[in-house]
């Protein structure tokens, strides 16, 4: 059952990723990226990380991608035209792709299953995650929050010269 769900999600994720790469219409690409993010959320659910899965949908597929689609529609771009590729680039690209594929295959071939054992029954729930964030990972969490606030203020300052 889990295996079946995994393969369905995997096919969906890979297919939508291929659509992003091959289509030239920006809105279609953005929509299939949203679909891709949602199917990644499916993997999180399969792994028992419920909260992360919901956040993936609400934040990435919901909020961020909607904003990206919004901006693309507002700019109203035509069909994308790629600039002419140089000769050397055309030759080098397949070579690098092949090298990368070989490295990836070698790593996958060598690696062994991690053997983490059964997770506890309340793994990945909001309560457990919240307790961990506010006890063991308290300082990293607060530092990241501060960093995000600073980034937000910076973005507003850059975008709006006069406040």
């Amino acid at each position, binding site marked *: 059952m889990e295996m079946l769900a995994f393969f369905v999600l995997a096919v969906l994720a890979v297919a939508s990723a291929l659509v992003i790469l091959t289509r030239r219409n920006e809105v279609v690409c953005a929509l299939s990226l949203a679909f891709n993010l949602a199917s990644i959320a499916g993997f999180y659910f399969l792994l028992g990380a419920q909260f992360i899965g919901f956040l993936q*949908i609400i934040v990435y597929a919901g909020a961020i991608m*909607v904003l990206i689609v919004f901006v693309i529609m507002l700019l109203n771009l035509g069909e994308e035209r790629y600039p002419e590729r140089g000769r050397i680039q055309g030759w080098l690209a397949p070579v690098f792709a092949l090298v990368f594929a070989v490295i990836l295959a070698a790593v996958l071939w060598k690696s062994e299953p991690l053997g983490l054992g059964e997770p506890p029954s309340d793994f990945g729930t909001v309560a457990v995650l919240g307790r961990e964030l506010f006890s063991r990972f308290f300082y990293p969490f607060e530092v990241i929050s501060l960093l995000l606030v600073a980034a937000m203020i910076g973005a507003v300052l850059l975008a709006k010269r006069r406040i």
Partner: protein
Amino acid sequence: MSDFTFLIVSTVVKLGVAIGALMGSVAVMTWVERRLSAVIQFRWGPNRVGPFGLFQPVADGVKFIMKEDIIPASAHKPIFILAPAIALITSLTAFSVIPFGPIVELFGRKIPLVVVNMDGGILLAFAATALGVYGIVMGGWSSRSKYSLMGSLRSSAQMVSYELSMGLSVMGVILVNGTLRPFQIVEQQAGWFWNWNVFLGGWQLLGFILFVVAIFAETNRLPFDLPEAEQELVAGYHTEYSSMKFAMFFMAEYAAMTTASALAVTLFLGGWQLGIPVPFEGWVLWILQVGAFAAKVVCFLFLFVWVRWTLPRFRYDQLMNIGWKGLLPLSLLNVLVSALLVAFDVVGR
């Protein structure tokens, strides 16, 4: 029957009941909307088909199925076809976490009357609403019509803005109840009606008001119906749609309305709790409780229609000001106050 088969069978039955009730409410609402608007405006409304025009939804349904399905020549076909389906699926999904009754004992087993009784239920509802905007965006963009595009641009801006306030206004309830499981939230509001979250149970009156305003905007209802403002945009994002595809957008909108009402009832108004102690037990009590839930949702739907035919529409800049400068700070304040109330043990369960 093994436990697993029983779980599957009972879930399928509950799913059927929930979708049936939801779609039934959509059909009835299309009639109620027109009759009530007529009453408010001193008109008659549809009163020809059947007693009081009650069979009007059936006539409309037949009409939608019989009409020609037109796809504009310049439309982006796959997305044009997909858009209404996504709109409908997302608004139906959100309903699955809403408890419509207590734990019922049937064939010696305890069945909670909710389709998905999961720990992060509220998050599931929010995730479904967050994805709901795609139906509108895709429909508007793929039509290749300026009115449709304007409508979907407005609606994506509006839904992203108000989603934030909607999520934050619910934070108070989550803080007070200490759980994200809708069924548990309803169970904790037992007893007299002042134990409901909106009253002394959670001190969430502000949160409730903010949530109601936010769901009006999320469901694109007046006074926030800019995505389909008739005078400016013909019909907004579904201008180019006809036949059953248009009907699906229509159903999605009304289903979203019912789901939002049910969510408000569950979170703030005690869900299926009666609010007064009654001397009944067993089946009678269970039926009364399911009835109480239905009655509360119906009151809420009445409010939706009433407001639509009473208030004028906001301008776009007013809409954004209300969302970002009014609702958002207030809902942040609500989170702060709720957190303080919980920290000093004024409320908490």
